[in-house]
Every structure is written in structure tokens, then in C-alpha cells.
């Protein structure tokens, strides 16, 4: 029978096995590569990963530690970009959902740019924002903004019935009160969900941009280190990216549960 429930303990054991399987599979690939060439560093064995960890956590001659510098740079850019992008898209998205004339003004640009990968127009970002932090922040912010504004205005328009809007008006609410009390509160869980889905692409764009123009950051480190085949460093950064993605995902789900318990799972 499908959907047969399993006990929590069984579930944990199965998940643990899955993680173990990933390690075993990795080590198997590493061993296969090492049979081809015992000195290869492209898929390093788990033991030589340790060397990589030391390399990135030991301060260099200038007193800089790769891990610290890169994490500060990349996550700083990401969070700043996300913050600006999310803030702006909430304001514009809700306004678009509430006022058809705002919608008419923004729809062409928003739906057009939402489909263009920002990394493909790097040169335009140079011209507009330079090549420093502003450019990375703008890239993350705008990539999030266009897609998120679009999904926010659509839920604001479709998920909130005319019925509830007019009911609030006839109970004497002002327009601002309707927007905050009726519209915003109803769409909040969907907004959080959309934000959660936008973090992945934002990270991809950021890493790609750092790959090309960064002089510090995770994307920069991955490029330079893979060029000289220090893959033990590269893989740790990839694990870190995966881990931080999971963490952000989980936090937003928790936030949604706390803010909107009525929404359910």
C-alpha cells in the first residue's frame, strides 16, 4: 500500500543511511579515480579533504583566513542584496496587486526582466553599478526583485477575494488598513514561500558573478582553486553552500509556521 507511515525511529535510520550512502559513493568515485592515477587531486579521498580544511582555516602571510574573508564577502553581498530585493518587491508587488494602474505601469518591465539571467548581462551591470560590492548587491537584489514582485502581485491579486476586501471597506476600514490587515496578512505565507524559492537562484547568480569579477568570495575561491586543481578546497565550499542553503530554507519554513500558524503545512 502506498503512503504507509513509518515510525520516527525508522525514518531517522533510513535518512542516516542515505547520508552514509553519499559518503560511500563519494569515496568510491575517489578510489576509482585514484586507481586511474594514484596522485590525482580532482576527486580527493575524504582524508585529503582534511588538508583542504586546514588550508582554508589557516591565516596567510597577510593575516587573512580564506574561509573568514570569503564567507564575510559572499554572505554579506547575499544578505544585503536579498534584503533590498525583498523589501522593494514587497512594496511594489503589493502596490501592483492593490492598484491596477500601478500594475499596468510595472507589468511590462517586471515580467520581461524576470526572464533574463542577470549574469548574461554582466556588462550592463558594470556600466550601471561598477565592479565593486554595489554590483554584486544589485545583481542579487534585482534578480530577486523581478521574479518576486511578479509572484507577490499575482497572489495579492488572485488569493485575496473581492468579497473580503469589500467586507473590510463596509466595516469602515481605510485603504491602508485593507492593504495591511486583509491583503498583506492573507498573502504573507505565500510571500515567505516565494522568498524561499528565490534564494537558490540568487545564490547561483552571485556565485557566477564572483566567478568572473570577484577578488574575494566563494565564487572567486572556487574558480582560482579549481584552476590549480585544489579540489579538496573546492568541495568543502560546495558542501558549505549546500548546508547554508538548507539552513536558510529551514529557517524560512520555521518563520512561516510561527507567523502564520493558520496556513498549515
Amino acid at each position, binding site marked *: 500500500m502506498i503512503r504507509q507511515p513509518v515510525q520516527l525511529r525508522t525514518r531517522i535510520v533510513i535518512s542516516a543511511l542515505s547520508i552514509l550512502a553519499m559518503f560511500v559513493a563519494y569515496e568510491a568515485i575517489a578510489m576509482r579515480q585514484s586507481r586511474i592515477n594514484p596522485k590525482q587531486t580532482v576527486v580527493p579521498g575524504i582524508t585529503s579533504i582534511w588538508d583542504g580544511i586546514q588550508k582554508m582555516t589557516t591565516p596567510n602571510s597577510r593575516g587573512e583566513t580564506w574561509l573568514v574573508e570569503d564567507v564575510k564577502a559572499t554572505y554579506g553581498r547575499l544578505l544585503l542584496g536579498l534584503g533590498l530585493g525583498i523589501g522593494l518587491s514587497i512594496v511594489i508587488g503589493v502596490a501592483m496587486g492593490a492598484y491596477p494602474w500601478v500594475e499596468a505601469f510595472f507589468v511590462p518591465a517586471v515580467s520581461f526582466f524576470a526572464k533574463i539571467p542577470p549574469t548574461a548581462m554582466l556588462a550592463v551591470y*558594470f556600466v550601471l553599478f561598477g565592479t565593486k560590492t554595489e554590483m554584486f548587491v544589485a545583481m542579487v537584489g534585482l534578480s530577486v526583485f523581478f521574479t518576486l514582485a511578479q509572484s507577490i502581485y499575482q497572489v495579492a491579486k488572485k488569493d485575496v477575494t473581492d468579497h473580503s476586501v469589500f467586507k473590510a471597506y463596509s466595516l469602515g476600514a481605510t485603504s491602508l488598513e485593507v492593504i495591511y490587515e486583509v491583503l498583506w496578512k492573507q498573502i504573507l505565507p505565500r510571500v515567505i514561500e516565494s522568498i524561499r*524559492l528565490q534564494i537558490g*537562484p540568487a545564490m547561483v547568480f552571485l556565485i557566477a558573478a564572483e566567478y568572473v569579477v570577484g*577578488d574575494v568570495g566563494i565564487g572567486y575561491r572556487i574558480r582560482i582553486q579549481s584552476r*590549480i586543481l585544489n579540489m579538496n578546497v573546492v568541495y568543502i565550499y560546495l558542501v558549505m553552500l549546500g548546508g547554508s542553503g538548507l539552513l536558510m530554507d529551514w529557517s524560512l519554513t520555521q518563520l512561516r509556521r510561527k507567523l502564520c500558524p493558520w496556513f498549515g503545512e
Partner: protein
Amino acid sequence: MRNQILCLSLAGLAVAAGCSKSTPTNNGGSGPVASGSTPTFSLAWSEYPSWSVFGVAHEKGIIDGAEGKRGPIEEKWGVDIVLKEADYDTCLTYYGSSETDAVCITNMDTLAPSLSRASVAILPTSTSVGADACIAAGIDNLDGLKGKPTYGLEMSVSQYCFERNLELQGKTIADYPFKNMDPGAAAQAMQTNQAEIESIMVWNPFVLQTLRTRDGAKVIFDSSTIPEEIIDMVVIGKDALAKEGGEAFAGAVVEAFYEINKMMADSATGDETLIAIGQKFSSLELADMKEVVKQTRFYGTPDEALALLTSEKFQNETMPQVSSFCESHGIVASKPTVGFNKDDAQFNFTTKFVEAAKAK
């Protein structure tokens, strides 16, 4: 939806990292029948004047880069050469992970992979005599550059050329910060007059392109001060060379290279061949390509190649210098052993195949 975005952005990444192209397909020319027993060897190459020669050799039909198809040179040597065209960085990864038998690579970039895969340089193809340049706008000379960042690819020939020039002029390297940026992106930033990008260190076609596009852009110094230090070459894994047919493959690659060089030297076919080489290389025109091959001086004959490989300076000064640079910049954890006609060296320059080509 989300997958679509990821796909697009991955495509964007590929575009941003430099347009990579897949292996060239059949040229429709001569099509010898595939034979099951012919050993197959791969050569990874990226667009660069003296490496595009192999792409042109395929287009002209003297070799066939598709798997299972052979051109006249491959027939003669009894091997099947498979050409893999990719972005330069990708070629390095191919080679390091043994995904290709041979690769077009510089002398400096061979040091790191040779630590894990013993390497044999079979053919020097060209040397940079001005093809790597430090270009500045609004700065007139080295003194004006002091304290201002120069943008270029870290841990590459760009940084090497930059520091060597400072050294030659007696400057302190610490006074001239070098910041990482992809050369294509740095050139783009310079060409769009970005205020914070006053100086870049890039290679061709970006050098010519930037000088042409940006008014007031000026070469502060270039690789013509360090001739025969940055060498473009063909390197083959020692493991691949030892395989059956490995030496025939090396011989075929060397012959194909010299065949195209003969066409370039011939006044009847020279211009046409040069245009073919330049076509994908940033679509430069004939006049520009003539400039390019001056700045990227080809080792067009076995004699020129032998002169480099047997030169005392190259063996005893240049290569040790390049090794030290790589070690002090963390490109290699320890220096690999470099040898000339020494089979047990981790990185061995051999004259065997060039000499064989000369003897013919």
C-alpha cells in the same frame, strides 16, 4: 519554473566564464572508415592563435577531429586524433582529471597538474611577445600606477608577467596591488570607462580590442620585455604517451602543427590560413591578425622550437624562475621536478618529436 531559472543561470555562467564550444563536428571532407584497432587519443584545445592551428587543421582536412574519422596525417601515423575544444580553464581541468590525453597549455600552468600527472611537453607552439599587456587609462607610466590596483586573472601568466616587469624595473611588488578579475570582464569594464578600473593586465584578443575601443588607453608594459618566458605548448600525459600508439599520436600532432605553419609561411595560402585562424579568435581581421601573430610569435619550424628547448637561458633561468613564482604564489605546494629530455622528471620537455619532424 525554478529549474528553468537554474538552467538559464548555468547557461549564463558558461557565457560569463568564456564561451565554451563543443567538439567540432565533421567537416564533410575526406572520411576514412573507422577502424576498431586504431588507437584513439584526445587533444583538448582552446581558442588561441597558435592553438587554433589544430582547429584549422581539422577544417582544412589534414586531420579529422571527430572520433572514428581520420585525415591523411592520422592515416599515416595510424592513430585517431579526437579534438576537444573548450574554454582554457576547462582544458586545464580536463587534463588534470585525465579526461584528455594531451592539452594546449602554457609552461606555467603545466606545473600544477604535473605534480599529480607526470607531463611531457612535446611541442612549443608560440611565445608571448606583447600578447600580454598592462593597459591603463589616465595613467602615463609605472610611477603613476603606484598604489593603484591592476585587474587581471590571479595565479595566471598575467600576474606572472605583471610582477616580472615590476621586478625588471626595480619596483617593489607590494606597491602595485594586483586584483583578481576575469580578463574578459576586466577588458569589458575598461572599455565601458568604469571609473574604478584604471589599469588592467590582460591577454589577446583583449589587448588589441581594448586599445582600439578605449580612447586614451595606453600600454604601460607588456610581455615583449620577457620574451620566451611565457610559452604556449602542447603537453601530453606521460601515461598517455606510454600507451600503445602514444608516440605516434605525438608525432601526428607535431606534424599537423608544422603543416599549417607551412601554409602560413607560403605566400599563396598565408593570408587565407591566417584569416581561418583568426576567425573564431574574436573575429579579428587580417590586419589585426598580422599584429596578433607578431605579439604571439609562432615556433613555426622545428629549428625554432629546438632553439628554445636547448637554450641555456630557458632551461636554467626561465623555468626555475617560473617554478619559484608558482611556489611563492601558492599555485603549487612544492616545485615539481622539471627536466629537459629527462624521462623521470615530473615535467619533462622533450625534443624527440620535434627532432623527428626535422629529420623528415
